[in-house]
């Protein structure tokens, strides 16, 4: 029987897996750097929390609307991101994060600094679901997201994103509407992050603006980069390892921001593809064992 503590840790990791996969759509597949991803997690969380506490929604519709709203806002905020590249895109997305956090912090409707509490866990057939039940729910969402990812990668959308990532101008010349596919990536990635935010809110039962700040965005980004940007297995592995680390090691928890920052620096220098990325040490070693050349992007 799984201990209550273990289940809690697994749920936390599970939510991070969803977040990492959602960011991977924007940054890994479509190649658009986003340093403000936690903003959409927050939008989803607050939407779900408000619908539940102020509008009497039950979890299930609140959860879906949270994803929808986060996706919509993602689509709208993608517009200022369209014409800027790389460095400027990084700054723009950072700015978005700060603005969204500030909105939650200073607008009384969102509960300001005190946040929102009393966000009860979901109920099924009138009974509040147990912790293991919630873990099952998170697991179910993860499975759906993975299936969606695989479908996207294998479709023309995935190919368009790959071209966009490699060379935006050449992609346009080959018939790809660059604007449309960028917005699509931001919309989907934000929507899924919103769903994760809703799960987060109903799991923690209270949320505060600081939960969705720039630091949180960096945590999510570290997981994606650590595991391997652009692959499916990478962000999952990154979320598991970096999600479990603060639970296993108290110093890691306290110095988390420092640790993740250092990790990002080291990764960029020695393994920019991430631990499980295509050209990483582990991936090449694995392929060498299996006797074949470097793999193509899956």
């Amino acid at each position, binding site marked *: 029987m799984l201990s209550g503590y273990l289940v809690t840790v697994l749920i936390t990791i599970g939510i991070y897996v969803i977040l990492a996969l959602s960011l991977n759509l924007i940054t890994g597949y479509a190649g658009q750097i986003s340093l403000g991803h936690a903003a959409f997690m927050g939008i989803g969380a607050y939407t779900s929390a408000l619908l539940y506490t102020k509008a009497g929604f039950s979890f299930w519709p609140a959860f879906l609307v949270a994803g929808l709203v986060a996706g919509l806002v993602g689509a709208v905020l993608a517009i200022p991101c369209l014409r800027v590249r790389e460095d400027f895109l990084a700054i723009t997305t950072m700015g978005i994060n700060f603005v969204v956090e500030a909105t939650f912090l200073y607008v009384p409707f969102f509960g300001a600094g005190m946040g929102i509490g009393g966000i009860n866990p979901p109920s099924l057939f009138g009974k509040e679901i147990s912790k293991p039940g919630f873990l099952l729910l998170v697991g179910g969402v993860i499975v759906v997201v993975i299936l969606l990812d695989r*479908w*996207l990668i*294998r*479709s*023309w*959308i*995935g*190919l*368009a994103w*790959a*071209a966009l990532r*490699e*060379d935006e*101008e*050449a*992609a*346009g*010349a*080959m*018939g*790809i*509407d*660059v604007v449309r*596919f960028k917005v699509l990536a931001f919309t989907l990635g934000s929507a899924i992050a919103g769903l994760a935010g809703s799960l987060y809110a109903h799991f923690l039962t209270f949320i505060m603006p600081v939960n969705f700040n720039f630091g949180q965005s960096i945590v999510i980004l570290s997981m994606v980069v650590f595991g391997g940007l652009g692959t499916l297995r990478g962000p999952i592995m990154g979320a598991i390892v970096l999600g479990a680390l603060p639970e296993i090691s108290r110093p890691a928890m306290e110095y988390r921001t420092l640790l993740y920052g250092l990790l990002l620096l080291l990764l960029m220098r020695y393994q920019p593809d991430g631990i499980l990325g*295509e050209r990483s040490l582990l991936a090449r070693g694995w392929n060498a064992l299996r006797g074949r050349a*470097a793999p*193509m*992007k899956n």
Partner: protein
Amino acid sequence: MTLLEIEHLTKVFDGVTALQDVTLEVRAGEILGVIGPNGAGKTTLFNCITGIFPPDRGTIRFRGEAIQGRRPHEIAHRGIARTFQIVRPFPTLSLTDNVLVAYGHRFYPRLGASTTASRTRASLEASHRLLDRVGMVSGHERQAGTLPLGLKKRLEIARALALNPSLLLLDEPSGGLRHEESQQLLELIRRLSQEGITVVLIEHNMPIVMGVCQRLVVLDHGVQIAEGDPAAIQRNPQVIEAYLGKGSTQSTGC
């Protein structure tokens, strides 16, 4: 029949006039060469046609439809394909995937179609055939970034052909190629022209220009200074002064 009509095309960058009142036409089925010294505005011309940026003044008509100011993907959908002066295949994608990206132009515009699987038997076969067509018969799964320059250029042409273009714009396709590779390129261009594709070529390599172009347009400092068949252009004193006289002694493809 006139395929492409350019009238009074003007493009200014920060005070520098890259194209000044350029008027020319491209006839269906021909191989047109655009030549001129460096900085003459040739690539800017291509960039205006393909929608990388809009012209400041003037019109570009393709099959009678005004296309100036349209975005690159819209131009590609209308059947105008291009290669780049500094070759830029998608580096970490395989050769097949590079061509597949362009082949997918039929699917990208519609949401439903774009969600279907990309690597179908039909699409993969089409990609392999296009690579064969430009003379690349093996190694289709290599990463494009690992190719030598000559093959990268051929890959770009295969990719452009995947758009099923009626007009192919080649920007200095022989740049950096050895003599033998240039000859193969000449053959390829001739073959494509025979298959009915109209080709416009920006080139510095005079043997290629004289060898394959049926008509030439000469630009110098953004202005069109001459137009006509290669023999006449070679004799044109203005052209000689602007370009051939000073440039022809330089190596034409090492």
